[in-house]
């Protein structure tokens, strides 16, 4: 995850709230050890270095997270796909600038993309890796997953009046504090930070944002052969839980507006905003497109 988690907790006893936060952060640290692909003995690193047909026994949490990732891949028609790691390694340098791979490299990376390379054994917590070289990256779902675990711990501590921030890009409302109508949320236009795109109150569920910095590229796992494109500037998604929201914002970076519309219609608890391609300088607020619950909303002006 390699990100900073923050918590807002409403509670009279500050020291008690800190105690709960400490327990929650400890859980995030523990999950990082299981889920980071950069830690050589994490479950994800073990899967990424598995040989063909090897069954890797993973922890319960990683198994849950992988199961959710499979669901989200299916739900988004492959636009969200954690097996995208090989494509990223093939097409992008570490700073996300484009590199020029050979045809063989591209073919191999395409071949290794797809959740069909992974078989989850629901009878145990074993994960079979069907193709050696598969590179899983929980970047688009791990934060949301950890945020849900944090919420679980806060509820256990009776600290439910809380907001979980996973990096700057994912927020989860555990519940709204007494006397408040919702957590105040603000979305800015990334190409023009002084411009507020939307202001609203998050009552339940989660909100997640994805975007790219100038010069960075994104890859559509469904169009693996095409390689990186500058593509969409930003996408936000709202959903009932942080895992879904996190995965959706990643998918909404590459799904066509009509596909996002379909998704939000089929899943009534979801909503999305996207800022289209940024080919000619700064995107305007008027260009932002809203979907689902946010469709047709007239955002209060600044």
């Amino acid at each position, binding site marked *: 995850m390699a990100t900073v988690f923050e918590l807002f907790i409403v509670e009279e006893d500050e*020291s*008690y709230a*800190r*105690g*709960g936060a*400490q*327990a929650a952060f400890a859980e995030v640290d523990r999950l990082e050890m299981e889920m980071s692909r950069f*830690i*050589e*003995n994490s*479950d994800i*690193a*073990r899967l990424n*270095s598995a040989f063909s047909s*090897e*069954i890797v*026994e*993973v*922890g*319960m949490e990683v198994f849950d997270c992988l199961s959710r990732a499979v669901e989200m891949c299916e739900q988004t028609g492959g636009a969200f796909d954690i097996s995208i790691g090989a494509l990223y390694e093939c097409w992008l340098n570490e700073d996300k600038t484009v590199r020029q791979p050979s045809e063989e490299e591209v073919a191999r990376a395409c071949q290794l993309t797809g959740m069909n390379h992974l078989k989850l054994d629901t*009878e*145990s*917590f*074993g994960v079979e890796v069907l193709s050696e070289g598969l590179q899983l990256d929980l970047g688009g779902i791990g934060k949301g997953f950890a945020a849900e675990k944090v919420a679980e711990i806060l509820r*256990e*501590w*009776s600290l439910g009046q809380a907001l979980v921030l996973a990096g700057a890009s994912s927020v989860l409302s555990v519940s709204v504090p007494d006397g408040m109508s919702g957590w105040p949320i603000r979305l800015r236009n990334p190409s023009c930070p002084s411009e507020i795109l939307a202001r609203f109150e998050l009552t339940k569920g989660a909100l997640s944002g994805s975007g790219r910095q100038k010069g960075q590229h994104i890859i559509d796992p469904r169009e693996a052969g095409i390689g990186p494109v500058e593509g969409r500037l930003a996408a936000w998604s709202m959903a009932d839980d942080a895992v879904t929201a996190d995965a959706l914002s990643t998918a909404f970076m590459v799904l066509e507006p009509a596909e996002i519309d379909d998704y939000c219609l089929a899943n009534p608890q979801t909503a999305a905003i996207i800022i289209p391609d940024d080919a000619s300088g700064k995107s305007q607020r008027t260009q932002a497109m809203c979907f689902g619950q946010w469709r047709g909303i007239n955002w209060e002006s600044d």
Partner: protein
Amino acid sequence: MSNGIDRRKFMRSSAAAGAGLVLANRALGQADAKKDINVALLGAGAQGQVLMNAIFKLGRDSGIKFRAVCDIWEKGNLSRVSRTLKAYGRYGHAGTAYVDYQEMLEKEKELDAVLVATPDFWHAEHTIACFDKGLHVYCEKEMSNSIESAKNMVLAGRKAEKLLQIGHQRRSNPRYIYCHDKVINEANLLNRITNISGQWHRSREACVDLKWPNGKEIPKETLKKFGYDSMSQFRNWRWYKGLGGGPIVDLGSHQIDVYSWFLDNAVPSSVMASGGVDYWKDHEWYDNAIAIFEFPTKKGLVRATYETLTTNSSNGYYELFMGDQGTLLISESAGRGELYRESWVEEAKWDPWVQKGVVKLEKASVKPEAKAGDDEVDVRESATPALYRMPIEMKVPYHQPHLVNFFESIRGNQTLNCPGEIGYETAVMVLKVNEAIAAGRKIELKPEDFKV
């Protein structure tokens, strides 16, 4: 399995080589002729859960079956771990929960071994009770908070003729075994080791007292019965005299154990130390400690320093072995391992070990070369030492190989990497640090101080 004998042979040789441990774990997963070992977890806190999870990741065919779990925190760790064990029921685990360890040992008739991960001051009583029932014991470090009790554990194990593995898990870590066997002993790349330093610096944030959710307290009478004044003391026992040993014992012990191991299990002839309760309030044990040991070895004296902090995380944790020809930096922390050749040592001296694949040259030494005929002296920065790496990774949970070593020793396929006698030596070394701080003077040690 038709090749059962070959596999066992492989297990034995891999234990010696270390490098094969990862493969050995794969072999474990495929075995069908494994004798089941029934275990109980005694102490279900953070460390107990680490051990449990490392065992789960051996897979459903490991033959290791949890039968029960015991912890006095019924509404906390006990219910959490019991729930988890039940979730793994299809692996053959059972999560029968006990608050009282005596009741567990009485009622669970099928046990072969117990994993003891309770606070240090309980280790001796728990371990000895298990031996009395004829069970093997994997006991977390520190073996005990008292030298006398640690000694009694070893004696009880000998009397019962059962195995006692102490949880210094680096002893089974393939990266550490590689450094010990290959880099230091076989290739002798450091040559004469003269000094060792090491540290575990932990950030203030990671050392804040632990709390507990409202309504989940342990009843007062239970706390009292098991030796705690309060729920806060139970959660933070490591800081209290009579319960734990403070950071030098919690953190330093692992690393000081490696000092001794890499010096062929040498024991120190003296220790001096400084430390204090300088930062944290309401703690009894020293929140920072700096120790100096003198290790007499066959090759000469090795002077070693060790430092542990609980206010600052600068440079994390590692052990640094310094010889007159090279330096080895090793840490349990994923991927942290470096080897430097002193710049005066010719590259050709290490080349054969690079050819053999024992070490990999990552960055050659940058050395100014004197050209024939030059009539001026070219002055520039001094040569940087060449950087080498060990071609070995740790691909399984940190504690897993040490647990496997314990289970395979029960099955008769391996011998313990950290038996009670070794754990005892380490316990003496670290407990003497606290004694030296309290006494404010150098403490001389004799070889017999480390013998049981």
